[in-house]
């Protein structure tokens, strides 16, 4: 039994929108749907220019095992199929659809026929769902467990530890019955018996609702966790709910658990009932440049500009816009960037918040070391990176880093530790693959 307590940090909560049920934004004139909204191979486009599409209609097929199909989020006409630059900096094909504003559902949609494990996983695959907590890993791959007896527990990640974001909170309040229907489906088709819903203690309304419903369901525990970031990090959540350590490079299943985001689970249950694939997202729109912080529902592919306008506009031009929360989110290159499947928040910052603070020399205070949840040594990693020492990077386990941001957040010298860790991880990857080739 591990008794060690993992480190973490207190971040400002800023859950300004927790009590705001999401509202629909006006249907944008166009949506641009990239073919890569998941971990794995991009989907292959299945429509051509001029095609009429409706909401929920397949526009791109899954390509390869780790991939996901993509569906139209609007009704309208395919305007163009062109490469766009996504936030990772790479170019991927994207389908731009001119909307007709009617949002007519695709008539062939029907609830999937599910009778057993295989048909369940197939349905999840067809729904186009990916990890909605932000990772975007195709959910059917995760649920397609080869040996169901390995599953000791399913951990439902409802920690939502990033500042600002409340879209999972809204799922727990607005779609709570779907969460429990999802639990029912996992019981039935995966044979899972034990479910742990992990929620940070700054979401009292959601905790209450989940506790009420869990009392009526066998095998469901609500695990209230202290609001210490990064409580929702997979390794951290698994450790804090089960005291098990996922081995480096391994999967939660290696320690007998499956971790699924609460909104992903609710979506699966909703899909089983309606047959409507993943085409829209509840997104928290907040940040210092946002006029009225709120939760909105937007079609996937909506540009950030349309999303911000639809949510009530910004106070002047935003200086930085982030996909996701401020701790791990990615700064987007332009407001044309579309909303993706796993986008759960758009944070727009004014200039004062957007400019990163000035970096000064490391004073060796050890704050980074004493706040890393995975017990890494960011100071030593920086040194090994600068001195070009990949063997040392391997010894320091830099590839374990989940880039949660705690080290950078607490650094008094405001050193870009996460940036260095990312570069160091890439350096180690290069080194290891070259080593492999040499052998």
């Amino acid at each position, binding site marked *: 039994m591990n008794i060690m307590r993992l480190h973490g940090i207190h971040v400002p909560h800023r859950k300004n929108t927790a009590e705001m049920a999401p509202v629909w934004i006006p249907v944008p004139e166009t949506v641009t749907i990239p073919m890569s909204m998941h971990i794995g191979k991009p989907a292959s486009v299945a429509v051509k220019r001029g095609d009429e599409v409706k909401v929920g209609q397949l526009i791109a097929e899954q390509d390869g095992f780790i991939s996901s199909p993509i569906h139209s989020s609007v009704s309208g006409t395919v305007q163009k199929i062109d490469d766009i630059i996504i936030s990772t900096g790479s170019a991927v094909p994207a389908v731009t659809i001119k909307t007709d504003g009617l949002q007519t559902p695709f008539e062939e949609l029907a609830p999937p026929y599910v009778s057993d494990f295989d048909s369940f996983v197939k349905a999840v695959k067809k729904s186009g769902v990916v990890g909605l907590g932000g990772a975007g890993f195709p959910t059917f791959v995760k649920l397609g467990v080869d040996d169901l007896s390995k599953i000791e527990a399913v951990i439902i990640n409802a920690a939502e530890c990033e500042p600002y974001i409340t879209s999972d909170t809204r799922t727990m309040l607005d779609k709570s019955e779907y969460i429990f229907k999802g639990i029912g489906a996992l019981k039935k088709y995966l044979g899972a018996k034990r479910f742990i819903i992990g929620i940070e203690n700054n979401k009292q309304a959601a905790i209450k609702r989940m506790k009420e419903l869990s009392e009526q369901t066998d095998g469901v525990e609500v695990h209230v966790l202290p609001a210490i970031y990064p409580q929702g990090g997979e390794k951290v959540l698994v450790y804090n709910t089960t005291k098990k350590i996922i081995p480096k490079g391994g999967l939660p299943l290696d320690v007998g658990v499956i971790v699924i985001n609460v909104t992903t689970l609710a979506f699966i249950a909703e899909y089983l009932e309606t047959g409507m694939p993943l085409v829209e997202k509840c997104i928290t729109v907040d940040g210092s440049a946002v006029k009225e912080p709120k939760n909105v529902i937007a079609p996937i592919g909506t540009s950030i500009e349309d999303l911000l306008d639809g949510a009530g506009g910004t106070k002047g031009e935003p200086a930085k816009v982030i996909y996701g929360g401020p701790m791990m989110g*990615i700064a987007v290159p332009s407001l044309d960037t579309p909303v993706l499947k796993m986008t759960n928040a758009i944070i727009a910052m004014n200039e004062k918040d957007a400019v990163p603070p000035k970096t000064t020399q490391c004073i060796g205070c050890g704050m980074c070391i004493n706040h890393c949840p995975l*017990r890494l040594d960011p100071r030593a990693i920086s040194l090994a990176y600068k001195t070009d020492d990949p063997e040392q990077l391997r010894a320091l386990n830099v590839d374990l880093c989940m880039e949660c941001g705690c080290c950078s957040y607490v650094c008094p010298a405001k050193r870009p530790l996460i940036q260095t860790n990312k570069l160091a991880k890439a350096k180690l990857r290069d080194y290891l693959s070259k080593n492999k080739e040499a052998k």
Partner: protein
Amino acid sequence: MKLISSVSPHIYNKNSTQRIMLDVVLALVPAAIASVIIFGFRALLVIGVCVAVCVLSEWLFEKACKKENTISDLSAVVTGMLLAFNLPVSIPLWQAAFGSIVAIVVVKQLFGGIGQNFANPAITARIIMMTAFSGTMTTWTFPDAVSSATPLSLISKGETSALPSYFNMFLGWRGGCLGETCVLALLIGGAYLLIRRVISWHTPAAFIGTVAIMSLICGKDVLYQLMGGGLIIGAFFMATDYSSTPPTKLGKIIFGIGCGLITVLIRFWGNFPEGVSFSILLMNILTPYISKLTRHKPLTGGAGK
């Protein structure tokens, strides 16, 4: 319109190097006030000279090396105050200035400036001064201008009848370096640093605890051992220096115990009546090894190296 693009995280806490150093300066203020009350205004003069020369030599060195100027981070102020606190009040001012230059230029800047020095600048400078100016560095002038020995040198000579009372020891009414004597003021400053989380309790607790236990075992008067010499200032302000001490809790405890053991070795069996400075410097030298040995074990779940 161009959006700012930077790597996550996009928010930071409000802490900064300057804020940390300001906290240390604030924590040293009670002891500075006490030194003026106990030793007179010359104490303030010595502190002023040390701080001014430290800041000036940092500025000049960085100017000469075309390095970015860092005097605004206040670390040179801290070094100046700590060095002054480790000098007798009667020290000639040119010697205090010399020590300040040694601390900043030789011990700190030549090794790369803030965060890069392997030894504590104030302590190393003090030890160099003790060797260079052994006469003036061990002349303990008391407020009434009468030379008097420090409690620890009285103990080491066996003249225990001349020792000040516990109460006077606690208030700092005794011979010694100008900032080390007032235990009350130093504890207030130490508590402030603990509350502000600038330092953690591990080093001072291990350091002071080791000296206390060893004194007890060796049959010495524990309270004189704790309140005499530079133990309290050393444990809270010098052995907690970031760059020259280990970063992890376990490392800090080992560092503190090591300091405590070396201190009592020197005090009880060495030639000097006091050993805090040497103990910290010696442990500074061991710090890279302690840091390496006490590095946190990453959460790899048994996989990887």
